[in-house]
């Protein structure tokens, strides 16, 4: 147990260089701007006076090293600058929109895991069967789908042609009031408030974008599950288990799947990274009021502080997810921390 705690501590420390790297790159991105950063940060509508004000505030008249520490110091205080598009602090804007994006992304990811893992396992245990071929087709087709295209396609079919889905505009139909704020996740909040009608409405809005993301995330997870299961089933230790007459289910779950789960879990980190990107596109397609939409608006309006804040917070979120995955891996894989 002591060694486990030590490993967890070590892993937490290992995240530090990543965080520092992220802050450095994000700092460089702001400073790499061709032209005068102060002009960009002040926004498209700024006059001369406010540009000078921004220059002062950002410390752009000082050395790079100083600028970096000012930047890092501001970050530590949770200050990501002001959004000129909305006139509110970037950090605040991002925080209020984060639950919307997370609700969408996590639902998509959850759906994908629920479908992809059993599918990959089935395919691996029956190589050459129809389910295996289906899995291979889905995997190759899935990674080829542009998410924005899938989203539009689903809208056309389920909203325009069939009329099953509500209009693809936001998290909730305008007929409903958002549930009282507790977690920011409408589905959870409406359940907490006991408002089943709002809950159902939330789900109706959520289904299409979540399915779009799910289709996107399905492929890599199913591919990895299938590959890892195939590898585990062909391994020497599974042969040993068979040679000792263990039952099929014991071999499949205790021996093969637990080993195969490790690379699948590692892949989830990568999938999450892709999902955060795909999320931006899906939010645009479905007019979802999350941070992706916010970032696109900021991009169009050249609102740099907002874009930088968005990139930085997405990266930190991703680091946090990777950290959680690694901690889980540390707990279930005795070998973690001993290689290299």
């Amino acid at each position, binding site marked *: 147990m002591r060694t486990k705690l030590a490993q967890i501590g070590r892993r937490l420390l290992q995240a530090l260089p990543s965080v520092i790297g992220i802050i450095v790159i994000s700092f460089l991105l702001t400073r790499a701007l061709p032209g005068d950063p102060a002009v960009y940060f002040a926004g498209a509508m700024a006059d001369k006076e406010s540009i000078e004000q921004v220059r002062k505030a950002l410390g752009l008249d000082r050395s790079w090293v100083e600028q970096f520490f000012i930047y890092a110091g501001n970050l530590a205080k949770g200050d990501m600058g002001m959004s000129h598009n909305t006139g509110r602090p970037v950090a605040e804007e991002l925080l209020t929109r984060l639950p919307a994006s997370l609700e969408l992304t996590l639902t998509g990811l959850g759906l994908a895991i629920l479908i992809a893992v059993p599918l990959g396992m089935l395919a691996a245990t029956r190589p050459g069967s129809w389910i295996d071929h289906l899995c291979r087709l889905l995997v190759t087709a899935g990674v080829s789908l542009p998410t924005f295209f899938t989203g539009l396609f689903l809208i056309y079919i389920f909203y325009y042609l069939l009329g099953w889905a509500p209009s693809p505009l936001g998290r909730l139909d305008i007929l409903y009031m958002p549930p009282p704020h507790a977690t920011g996740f409408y589905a959870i909040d409406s359940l907490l408030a006991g408002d089943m009608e709002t809950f159902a409405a939330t789900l109706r809005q959520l289904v299409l974008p979540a399915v779009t993301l799910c289709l996107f995330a399905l492929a890599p997870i199913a591919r990895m599950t299938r590959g890892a299961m195939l590898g585990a089933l062909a391994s020497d230790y599974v042969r040993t*288990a068979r040679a000792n*007459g263990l039952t099929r289910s014991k071999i499949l779950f205790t021996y093969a799947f637990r080993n195969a789960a490790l690379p699948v879990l590692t892949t989830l980190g990568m999938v999450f990274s892709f999902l955060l990107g795909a999320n931006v596109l899906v939010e645009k397609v479905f007019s979802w009021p999350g941070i992706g939409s916010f970032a696109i608006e900021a991009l169009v309006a050249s609102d740099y502080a907002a874009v930088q804040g968005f990139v930085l917070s997405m990266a930190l979120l991703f680091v946090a997810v990777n950290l959680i995955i690694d901690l889980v891996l540390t707990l279930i894989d005795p070998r973690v921390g001993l290689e290299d």
Partner: protein
Amino acid sequence: MDAQPILRIDNLSVRFRTRNGTVDALKGVSFSVAKGEVLGVVGESGSGKSVTAFTVTGLLDQAGEACAGTINFDGMELTKANEAELRELRGREFSMIFQNPRAALNPIRPVGKQIEDVLIQHAQATRQDAKAKAISMLEKVKIVEPYLRYWSYPFELSGGMCQRVMIAIALACEPRLLIADEPTTGLDVTTQKATMDLIRDLTREQHLSVVLITHDLGMAAAYCDRIVVMQKGEVVETAAVRDLFTAPKHPYTKKLIAASPGPSSKLDDLTAVLDDNTSHQPSMTRTINSGADTGHLLEVVDLVKEFPRRDVEMTGWAWPVKKREAQVFRAVDGISFVLKRGESLGLVGESGCGKSTTSSILTRLMDPTSGDVIFDGANVTSYSAQQFARLPQRMKIQMVFQDPSDSLNPRFTAQDSIAEPLKRLLKMKGSKQIDIKVEELAEKVGLEKALLSRFPHQLSGGQKARVGIARAIAADPLLLILDEPTSALDVSVQAVVLQLLDRLRCELGMSYIFVSHDLNVVRLLCERVIVMNRGRIVEDGLADEVLSNPKDDYTRQLVSAIPHFEPGKL
């Protein structure tokens, strides 16, 4: 012995479906195992010995199927049994252990739990007493501190310990037949002996029948009652051990016995019964130390190589991270020896003894931490590796590598591989000239000209070894370092390659340093041997003397661990 055999295989044929049609892996194999008997199944790679074992246990992969014959296990017909019936038998009635034990255990499950799984599966234990029984099994296979080891993962155990755990799993339900498929391949000789002794003791105690599958005739001789010799999917001879070694009937058996080096065999004997097309010129008699007067070719003085130690054991955790003291591990710990011109010296030891590190330093692929290597009058350690590459001495030290498939660039033809040193070291220009020289070298090592245009994967192990040797001698080296050149080869191929090396040494007047774990093989090629253990030289002397009368404890252990047969002593 009971009259009724526990396992009888009759006329068994197995076929594999591959891309290029079907391949017959077994062609009418028949043999039987009596109760309490230890049967050896011996053959070279591709002889079908493992396929036989997998067919018996029903573990053949899907591409293979038994197309004819019967397998009778104690009155039960196994070829007709379905998967569920076989599952009941596996582990309880017969079980199997494999080579590469560390990979054969579930890497993320404590070994004790893996023993428990089998016990519970076959209702030999309940959830309450399974743990106690598992621990007692660990004790039985002589694992120290079984209570602690119960929670160990395979990666925390040595290869020998993993194999013991495998044995514990296999014997947990007291089966009546144990099939051991090359159980000690890849283990060190001393571990090998301990493992085999354990298997023998436990199986005798439980009055178990054993099928021991091995490529090593010596091991089969030491542990088996009867031996089945297989070649290309067929049984060529079945006989009691004594009969097989004193009066082998089949020519293949004769060839195999002759090619297996024993403590008293001579190099010329190895291929005495080989088909004459690959015969060894016996005219060459060994010239022991004829060049003694010309002095030392190589002098190694107080050689040390240290590597930074990686902590494998986690020793607590302190905050903030303390800079660990620079711990080092001495792979080579102050060794000194000399090599005379024309002499052949064996460097023997188990894995991790520092012999490979030493050979890497001698070839200047690695820099020593301290110490000197004086080669042909020049101190080669005083140059950096880059400088040394430009010296004339560079071409005078060459090397033949261990695994022939890894030592040839897969993208180069045999011709390209042999031509490389000609172009680089001898600076030969003009493809015509190079072609002639390459053909000359190929002829020297007995490689057919037609094979020169082939890529490594189109060559057999023995042919690849020849290409490697041709490449090494291309620049007329004075010293050739042979790093286990035959360990990946079948015995009959090994015999031919050893003879080739011996002949080349006489013809070209080279000196050899032969690095190997196998004293018997080293003895054939070398006048003198150095035995290494934990980075130090523990014994140094004439080969025959060291082997027949070892002085050091470790050498004695090493010598006695080599399984061998001596017709006289059976």
